[in-house]
């Protein structure tokens, strides 16, 4: 029975994985990848890891794939067009190297005794949420904390990468190649106002605006 289930879910996973590679439309790739995630979650349940299975569905199939599908639709990706094959002379070399690799794998599989370990039938607490939490907050506290720092870095990095230059603070004065100047930089008599900013597309325009600002500085003295 378990073997039948394994064959079912493993076949589903491999089929969906091949579909991920074979599809040309990225959206179909994403849907196939969700199929891989779901079938792997079923395999995790068979391996007595219900918490990991739930996290797999929630985090991978839920959060990460929603993000990927969102980006695919945001960027309006078109299908890959067929292209002339580049580096065609490498195909025979690739076939030979693949044959060597398969021979190596076959040699290793035939020479190494396959693991005789069989699953123990006694009920254990491995895989329960409480045992995972206990391990995570006692023995593996340092990796856990490092992971949280990694997530913080990822948040900051994603925001830095994805934001547009127009969203810079108007208080930013002369950044190299500056495009945005606060109004009170150009005219110091204007009240501080963070909501209005002048925009200049080129450096010369910025210089011109700065020159205006210098003129305003010099006029009262004359």
């Amino acid at each position, binding site marked *: 029975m378990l073997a039948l289930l394994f064959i079912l879910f493993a076949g589903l996973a491999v089929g969906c*994985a091949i579909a991920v590679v074979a599809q040309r439309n990225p959206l179909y790739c994403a849907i196939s990848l969700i199929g891989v995630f779901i079938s792997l979650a079923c*395999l995790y349940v068979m391996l007595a890891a219900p918490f990991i299975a739930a996290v797999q569905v929630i985090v991978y199939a839920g959060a990460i794939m929603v993000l990927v599908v969102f980006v695919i639709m945001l960027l309006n990706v078109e299908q890959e067009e067929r*292209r002339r094959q580049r580096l065609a002379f490498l195909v025979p070399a690739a076939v030979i190297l693949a044959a060597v690799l398969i021979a190596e794998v076959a040699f290793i599989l035939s020479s190494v005794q396959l693991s005789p370990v069989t*699953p123990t039938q006694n009920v254990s607490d491995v895989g329960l949420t409480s045992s995972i939490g206990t391990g995570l907050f006692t023995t593996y506290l340092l990796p856990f904390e490092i992971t949280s720092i990694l997530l913080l870095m990822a948040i900051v990095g994603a925001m830095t990468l994805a934001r547009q230059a127009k969203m810079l603070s108007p208080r930013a004065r002369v950044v190299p190649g500056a495009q945005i100047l606060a109004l009170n930089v150009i005219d110091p008599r204007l009240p501080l106002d963070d909501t209005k900013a002048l925009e200049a597309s080129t450096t010369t325009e910025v210089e011109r605006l700065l020159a205006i600002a210098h003129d305003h500085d010099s006029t009262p003295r004359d």
Partner: protein
Amino acid sequence: MTPQLSWYLALSAVLFTVGVAGVVIKRNVIAMFMCIELMLNSVNLTFVAFASFFQDVTGQLFVFIVMTVAAAEAAVGLGIIIAIFRNRESLDVDDASILKL
């Protein structure tokens, strides 16, 4: 007949190989990204299989950490993809083969 450890390892190896092949074959950045996710998942399957067959929770803890790294990778990777698309109007890796913008 119950599934053996070697079955899971073989399935994981097949999934990993498919992922590597996808990274090599695909030219779309997002598709390559998804193939990397596939490779991470195959490694996760190995971890869970060992954790289950050796009755040790450590493997599942590392699956948890790998999932966190995958989430961080998704956030940063998709940010990079959006930045590339904004600069080049294309998601083809051949169009982004030099680091210069």
